[in-house]
């Protein structure tokens, strides 16, 4: 692999690694989602630094030019990350569905309780005062 390209790959991988760590530090990225990003940047960095490993991998896979092997590995990580996000999204939408249903059920129950209370207060004048006070 050409030295210039190697340099670009190394710098890119390091920047990605630092950026991911910074996001975790700022709590903008949860550790569980950061792990896959960290793994992918570390592997890409390792392959960029350790030329022999990349060449060996390229030979094993039948890839003629070593840089293409690097792209291949990076693409694999991208696909893995996307799938990971689709799974996370599915779980989130399932959870938000459950929340929406629970919220609607509670809201309905609350309005029923309030109606009951208003009715009880209307029939019994003594019950009206605490109701009014609590509404402030």
């Amino acid at each position: 692999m050409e030295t210039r390209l190697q340099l670009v790959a190394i710098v890119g991988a390091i920047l990605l690694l630092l950026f991911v760590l910074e996001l975790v530090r700022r709590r903008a990225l949860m550790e569980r989602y950061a792990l896959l990003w960290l793994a992918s940047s570390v592997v890409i960095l390792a392959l960029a630094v350790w030329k022999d490993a990349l060449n060996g991998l390229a030979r094993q896979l039948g890839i003629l030019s070593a840089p293409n092997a690097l792209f291949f590995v990076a693409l694999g990580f991208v696909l893995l990350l996307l799938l990971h996000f689709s799974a996370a999204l599915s779980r989130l939408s399932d959870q938000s569905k459950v929340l929406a249903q629970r919220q609607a059920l509670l809201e309905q129950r609350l309005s029923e309780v309030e109606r009951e209370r208003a009715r009880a207060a209307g029939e019994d004048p003594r019950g009206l005062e605490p109701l009014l006070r609590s509404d402030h």
Partner: protein
Amino acid sequence: MAPAVETMPAPVSSARSSCLAVVPAYNEAGTIEGVVGALHSKTPQLDVVVIDDGSTDDTAARAQAAGARVLKLPFNLGIGGAVQAGFKYADDHDYDFMVQVDGDGQHDPGEISKLFAALDGPEQADMICGSRFATATGYIAPISRRTGIHVFAFLLSRLLHQPVTDPTSGFRLYNRRAISLFARDYPHDYPEVEAVLMLHHHRLTMREVPVQMYQRGGGVSSLNGSGKSFYYMVKVLLALFVGLGRRRAVPRPGEAAPVAADHGI
């Protein structure tokens, strides 16, 4: 789980068994009052709850004015999430039966008695399904949907080893066991076909009875345009075939249904 399920003959008129009518509605302001009114007049023994699935019109207000209880979902969940909210309501309030009636006036509340009559049949069933095709009725579905319905009917009939003619019908009556199963786990969008298979996988039974259905009274179907119909076909087929390979607990009759999604944040 109530042990009484096996023995409950459950006529609608029985004071001991309680039944809830669930009406999922998304932007059905034009028809919802009529549907609720018809439910009240033709089946006065049913409690009616309308699930307002994040409507942008005044569906909820009109349903409330018509005398129904209203569950207002904070945003649109789609028919699966809306109906499941109804199952959860029925489960929370210990209803013995739940009948699902569309908010667009497609189903005739007068036919609910036919669903209940089927409960008294020779074999016990956990879900009674109103079918447009069990015998010749006046209903003609759009051609793009008809193909899908017949494909699903064919597949489900093979999978269940019993004739299923109208697996997309949303006009259904459920008993306690079906309610508690679907309150825990119900398919997301276009749920009817998958629900039949889920029921089967949990060793619950279903039966169909012929009913009349009207063309939609108003509003917009969730299945408009052949593009959506195609998506519907593919999505449900995927769900059916993937569902076949899903590992599942098989409860004995009478046991509570297992929880499907049991993971934390």
